[in-house]
């Protein structure tokens, strides 16, 4: 599998995916 960080577009997509994952992690497991 190709490293997404080898391309600019792969890097940006990885950033957005990571944002969504962390958002749901934070919403369900953090805060309050």
């Amino acid at each position: 599998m190709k490293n997404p960080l080898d391309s600019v577009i792969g890097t940006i997509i990885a950033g957005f995916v990571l944002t969504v994952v962390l958002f749901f992690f934070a919403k369900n497991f953090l805060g309050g």
Partner: protein
Amino acid sequence: MDLLIDRWLHVMAGITWIGLLYYFNFIQVPSMGKIKEDGSATAITKFIAPKALLWFRWAALATWLTGAYYLERSGIGLANAFLLKGTAAYIGLGVWMGTIMLFNVWVLIWPNQKKVLGIVDASDEAKLKAGRIALLASRTNTMLSIPMLFFMIAGSTAHMSIMVSY
């Protein structure tokens, strides 16, 4: 008043840091192949990149320090953010990513870029390896900047309800 000025400086330093990060990743690095073919790489490697890296690394440190000061003085607490405690959890995720990014700048990107740009002596093989490490660290920072900015914004009280109730 000092908090307002500190936050203002934090955002300005952050724009300088991430703006240069995006310049490197979206403009300079993808253009280097054609620039080398054109024979004008020296302009980048000798003059532009060293100056851009100077602003880049010091803006990164200034961003982190002004952010840490803000957390301490505002009552949120840097330790609470790192420990993802209570309402500091959201800004804490941003703090973790910002801290990893600062580490990447000073420990991975800058020492390896010094080899690539010829600021310190290195063999051709060492330069190739250094270039790969610097590129991956820089791309990691570009990737992390996206959720980092989201959690910096989400951590402000104006948006906290969205994170809790959405």
